[in-house]
């Protein structure tokens, strides 16, 4: 019995969404971890603080697990893209987008070689700062990998560096006018990379922080509490900086959308018709061409848009053929993301005020009890941010060039292995987080013994 191509297309979408959704859990925590390790080691050396030293050493073990599983998962995605969306990858491989992937692998080399030196040759360096500098290389490699892969996504949103007209008119057979390095800087690259980096760091920081918050509250060992407190202090500062930058970069990102992807902008803001004095709307829905229900703040959207971009007339869905509209659920995911981000901002503002008043919020049970649900919300907001970006581009895989349906492999031979991959990830991701904890706590016992 064969499965119809439409169902396989849906399955291909779901499989990749599931894989990348799982993968970014690892990526966000990896980025937060490696930055925490580097800062901890620096403070250990600078302040001669053995607690920071122990924290850096114990976390470096956790990072190896994170790197190992994350790398394997990254390769799964690279190969899965070829299997699920071969025509898309053919376009990628024929244009500058592949140069970005090549650059990403180079960054990956930097990360892996530095990581091996950092972890396995910790005491082989002549000076402590020399060893710490290697951690900076690990951070640089990790961040550069994230930057280059986000650049590929920016290129999918605003493709450049080849003749689109010739490519489409040739039935996706001829790629001409290739400028391989132009993919490094599309019109959306700067704002998207900025936003993705800080939100990824933020989500990972909150999740790692939740772990320390939980153990700080639970532990009765003064030495352990001192370590969790130090970790939370660093993570609290990172989270405050990252949430502020997330807001700024998110606003910048909306400005870029308004100019370069007006349809996506209209879908996110629920603009059914264009206008000059449009309100900001939350949690309503589009019914029969009109936005109904929810909350509106009159004139707010127009005000923000004019402030960010100078654009006075905002786009509406009615300007575009309905068959090119993304699923309008993106308006809701966008609202949850925005309101969730604001709630997290308020929590961290209170944390910041307490910090400034020297109330030690990183040791306050009140703050630490809230941190865990806040971390869940942060990860939800982060995942919804990606969902909004990807679903908001539908039906396109490469905006205004190739649809997902045109790119996909709809062979039903993918079904069984695809289901196995999903089941496998369902086991591996929780196991990975379980091992993070077990290894961190196991190191504790080794150190105490």
């Amino acid at each position, binding site marked *: 019995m064969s499965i119809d191509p439409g169902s396989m297309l849906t399955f291909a979408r779901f499989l990749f969404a599931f894989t990348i959704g799982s993968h970014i859990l690892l990526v966000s925590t990896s980025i937060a971890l490696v930055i925490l390790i580097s800062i901890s080691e620096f403070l250990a050396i600078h302040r001669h603080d053995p607690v920071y030293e122990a924290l850096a050493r114990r976390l470096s073990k956790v990072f190896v697990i994170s790197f190992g599983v994350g790398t394997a998962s*990254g390769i799964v995605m690279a190969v899965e893209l070829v299997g699920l969306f071969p025509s898309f990858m053919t376009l990628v491989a024929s244009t500058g987008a592949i140069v970005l992937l090549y650059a990403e692998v180079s960054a990956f080399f930097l990360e892996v070689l530095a990581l091996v030196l950092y972890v396995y040759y910790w005491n082989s360096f002549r000076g402590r700062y020399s060893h710490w500098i290697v951690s900076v290389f690990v951070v640089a490699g990790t961040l550069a990998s994230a930057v280059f892969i986000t650049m590929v996504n920016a290129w999918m949103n605003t493709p450049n560096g080849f003749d689109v007209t010739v490519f489409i008119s040739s039935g996706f057979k001829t790629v001409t006018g290739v400028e391989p390095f132009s993919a490094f800087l599309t019109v959306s690259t700067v704002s998207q990379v900025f936003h993705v980096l800080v939100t990824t760091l933020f989500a990972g920081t909150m999740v790692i922080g939740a772990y320390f918050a939980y153990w700080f509250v639970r532990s009765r060992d003064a030495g352990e509490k001192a370590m969790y407190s130090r970790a939370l202090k660093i993570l609290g500062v990172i989270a405050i900086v990252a949430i502020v930058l997330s807001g700024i970069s998110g606003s910048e990102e909306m400005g870029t959308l308004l100019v370069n992807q007006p349809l996506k902008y209209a879908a996110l803001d629920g603009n059914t018709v264009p206008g000059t004095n449009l309100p900001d709307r939350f949690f309503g829905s589009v019914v029969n061409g009109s936005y109904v229900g929810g909350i509106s703040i009159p004139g707010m959207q127009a005000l923000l848009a004019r402030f960010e971009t100078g654009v006075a007339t905002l786009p509406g869905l009615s300007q575009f053929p309905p068959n090119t509209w993304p699923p309008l659920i993106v308006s809701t995911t966008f609202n949850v993301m925005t309101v969730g981000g604001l709630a997290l901002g308020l929590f961290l503002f209170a944390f910041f005020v307490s910090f400034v008043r020297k109330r030690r919020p990183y040791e306050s049970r009140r703050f630490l009890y809230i941190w865990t649900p806040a971390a869940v919300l942060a990860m939800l907001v982060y995942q919804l941010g990606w969902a909004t970006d990807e679903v908001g581009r539908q039906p396109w895989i490469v905006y205004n060039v190739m649809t997902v349906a045109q790119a996909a492999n709809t062979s039903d031979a993918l079904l*069984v292995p695809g289901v196995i991959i999903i089941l496998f990830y369902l086991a591996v991701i929780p196991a990975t987080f379980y091992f993070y904890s077990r290894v961190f706590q196991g190191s504790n016992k080794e150190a105490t013994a």
Partner: protein
Amino acid sequence: MNGIFEVNYAAFSVFAALLVTEIMGAVGLLIAWPSRSKVLDYIVPVWEVTGTFGAFWVVTGDFAYPGLLVPVSEIFTPLLIIFLILWVARGASIAFAEFITKRGWLDEEKLFKSYAVATVVLGLVVLVLLSALVGGQGVSLASGSFSIISWATAGSVVFVVGTLLLAVGLAPVLFDLPALRNLVLPSTGLGVILSVLSYWLMSTTLLTPWMGVPVLLTLAVGALYAWRRTSKIVTNKAVFLAVLSVIIFSLQPLVYPKAVGQALPIDAVTTTGAMADAFFSITVVGGLLLALMLSLYVAVAARGPSGPGL
């Protein structure tokens, strides 16, 4: 000469050499767990590098042969997905194993053995893929499909057996196991004979005078180890890896100028024009960075590991 093919094949050679050494170690973990320390000393700092070279090969392959991605997807996706599951299993189990402390039923031994099983099965999947890419058995380019039943010809099976014998023969060299010294030359010799036979069974055109290079190099490794006074040369891990990479690199006539049973001319599917120029530019820049990092790695590693820094 096709420079892009050479770069991609060089990346493959290093990746394959690293993977083969991991498979050798994995077999060692499965059959001789009590003497695992020599194997783990090698594998533990290296497995992350293997993965990175794997990613490097995949990406340079995408870059080099954009027109092949659709047929590869149609033909090999189920096999590739099995590969991917094993790949994650391998990475996850060794990452967990490295730092696990015993609590409950799960311990270091079980996790390292899971890694070993995943790696060995992964190796078998890779051998099936490689033999199909070389001889074309089981592959239908016209219908875009792969059949494991059609793959199972004499040539393919002998290819797998020959390669496994080579791995068994060379493993005592890599891990310097004098107790198995007498196994090295017979197993390596038989592996070489079966490998050459498999190429002949796949297609007589695969047997060119160039094939003498990998044959002689492989036998030389075995011979150098068999003689005690020269064994130190080849038991050096860096030397062994370098020679193994060269051996695999010298096997390129199996897939160039034509692969998949002489049905796929490589030059015709290689990227050209501005993309080819970009490929070389970024390879030079990336290669220099990699060389710098590897130099630092070798310089620090020469001082010896200082525990897992922990």
